[in-house]
């Protein structure tokens, strides 16, 4: 890895972030690591590895890049592409145990939803510790003797990340529009691309204003029969577009055929951009995932206060109970149902209830991961 690789990954990542960006799995040395150097694990998403290198290039450590199919750590873990099998594979094939004299493995916190830490420990003998969410916090995490403070464990969606996400959606959709409209309606290309960029940036920049409409993940009510996160938003947008087209047409400023053509094009563009708007942010649950209606329950009688749930929760929903001997689910409305706490809890004190109040088997969450349609169909045990 060098500056050119980093730049290529950043540029390519901006244009084609929605597609897998692979880097060869295996052992990467950063600096000149010795036998005491820390061993960090990540997925083989090129942009992640490039950003890790940029943040850690002044350190001496080993980076184990597991095969996550070129998908980022969180998505790969949730989808069963980054599990203890992939980490075990890179541990064995890299022969890292011959290079270091310790057995401490730093896993990305966001992989906790996919990698079963206990299985990995039992099968490999390595001790697992969960690193911070962001690469920028890793140096401080290492300096603190592998301890992360709560802000390092919380996922954010700051302005920079929102702009990146808006641009990556806009670039991908613009390429598609350019290709299709070249055949169908070449005159509309400049205006369509302008609309795509404007709408994408508008949606993502204004997200903090309307993010609360997406949560908590309630089922449709009598007042608003369509869920806002999966259909409701799109219905509103479609209504607005077609009412505007009708008004412009009746006002006589645009001919009927022209206004309908533009309304149809706008509808396709905006539906594509909002198809999974909450799911394309790290702070909201995807509107396609069936898990969004589940409720997380903490069994206080079982809980032994290991604190692992607090360590892996990306929204920091857990606190210590006043007694200090158990945990409490202090901020349930922030929960994005990622299931990391359920997967990692050593005493199975956490579980989900479905909307009918049925308790879901812990192994369902631990070993069944979501497929591309958001259903837990992928077994990974």
């Amino acid at each position, binding site marked *: 890895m060098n500056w050119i690789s980093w730049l290529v990954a950043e540029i390519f990542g901006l244009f084609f972030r929605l597609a897998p960006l*692979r880097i060869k799995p295996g052992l990467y040395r950063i600096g000149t690591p010795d036998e005491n150097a820390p061993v960090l694990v990540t997925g083989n998403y090129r942009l992640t590895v490039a950003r890790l290198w940029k943040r850690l290039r002044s350190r001496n450590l080993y980076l184990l890049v597991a095969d996550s199919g070129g998908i980022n750590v969180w998505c790969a873990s949730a989808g069963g592409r980054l599990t203890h099998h992939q980490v*075990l594979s890179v541990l064995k094939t890299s022969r890292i145990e011959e290079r270091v004299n310790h057995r401490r493995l730093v896993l990305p916190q966001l992989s906790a939803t996919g990698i079963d830490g206990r299985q990995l420990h039992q099968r490999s003998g390595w001790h697992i510790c969960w690193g911070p969410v962001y690469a920028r916090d890793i140096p401080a995490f290492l300096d603190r003797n592998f301890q992360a403070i709560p802000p390092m464990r919380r996922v954010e969606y700051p302005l920079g990340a929102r702009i990146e996400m808006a641009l990556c959606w806009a670039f991908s959709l613009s390429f598609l529009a350019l290709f299709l409209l070249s055949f169908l309606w070449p005159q509309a290309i400049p205006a369509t691309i302008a609309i795509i960029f404007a709408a994408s940036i508008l949606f993502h920049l204004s997200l903090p204003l309307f993010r609360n409409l997406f949560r908590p993940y309630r089922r449709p009510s009598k007042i608003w029969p369509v869920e806002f996160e999966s259909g409701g938003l799109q219905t509103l947008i479609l209504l607005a577009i077609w009412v505007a087209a009708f008004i412009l047409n009746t006002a006589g400023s645009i001919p009927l055929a022209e206004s309908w053509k533009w309304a149809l094009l706008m509808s396709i563009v905006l539906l594509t951009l909002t198809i999974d708007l909450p799911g394309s942010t790290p702070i909201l649950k995807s509107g396609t995932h069936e898990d969004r209606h589940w409720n997380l329950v903490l069994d206080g009688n079982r809980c032994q206060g290991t604190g692992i749930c607090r360590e892996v929760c990306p929204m920091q929903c857990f606190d210590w109970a006043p007694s200090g001997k158990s945990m409490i689910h202090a901020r349930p409305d922030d929960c994005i149902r990622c299931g990391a706490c359920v997967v990692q809890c050593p005493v199975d004190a956490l579980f989900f209830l479905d909307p009918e109040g049925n308790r879901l088997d812990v192994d369902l969450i631990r070993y069944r991961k979501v497929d591309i349609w958001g259903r837990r169909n992928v077994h990974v045990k």
Partner: protein
Amino acid sequence: MKFFERTPIWYDRAIRWITFGKMADIRRSARSYFHPGQLVLDLGCGTGEWSLLAASQGAHVKASDTSPLMLQRAYSKACAASYGKHIHFAEQSLMELDNEPDKQYDVVITSLVLSECRKDEQAYALPHIARVLKPGGLWILVDEITPQDGVLALCIRCFRNTVLFFLRWMGVAVTHPLRICPADLEKLGFRIKHWQRLNAGTFLFCVAQKEAQ
């Protein structure tokens, strides 16, 4: 073949289509390699077709796979065929072969599993397969293989790479056909008993015997 592992009910049918029905023929011809009392290791057992074949000949089988769905399917089939007690199912990958004792098994089966591993994983697993076999033990290898040189091979590679490009773009796990020749197996201490390329040279059925010394 990981793509089909999500729907085990379709897996056997999909394999039949992909191999143009050759898998059943291969299993039929491999029946004579199994004998009562043998200890057989079926790596990446899938839905357990090879394990059932070995168990039907009186062998004791350890069948391993990383997919619980496939193991579940294999176990159901074994119970339905009354071989449930002869087959021990384990959820483990090829990367855990180092936990198996030396010279333990009479037969090791790897059917459509090595091509699911990357090159470095294949390089890690092959010496362990040789290690866990008893002297004189058999390794039955059935897998995708890179076709030999020639115009047909070039056409197949072009077609395959085009398909794989789009599959990779969609995030689908793809296979890595073996680049292996009899000399490679001989270096590992095997003697080739049977080497057959099928389906325009893209599919390999090999039986190799571990040297007594």
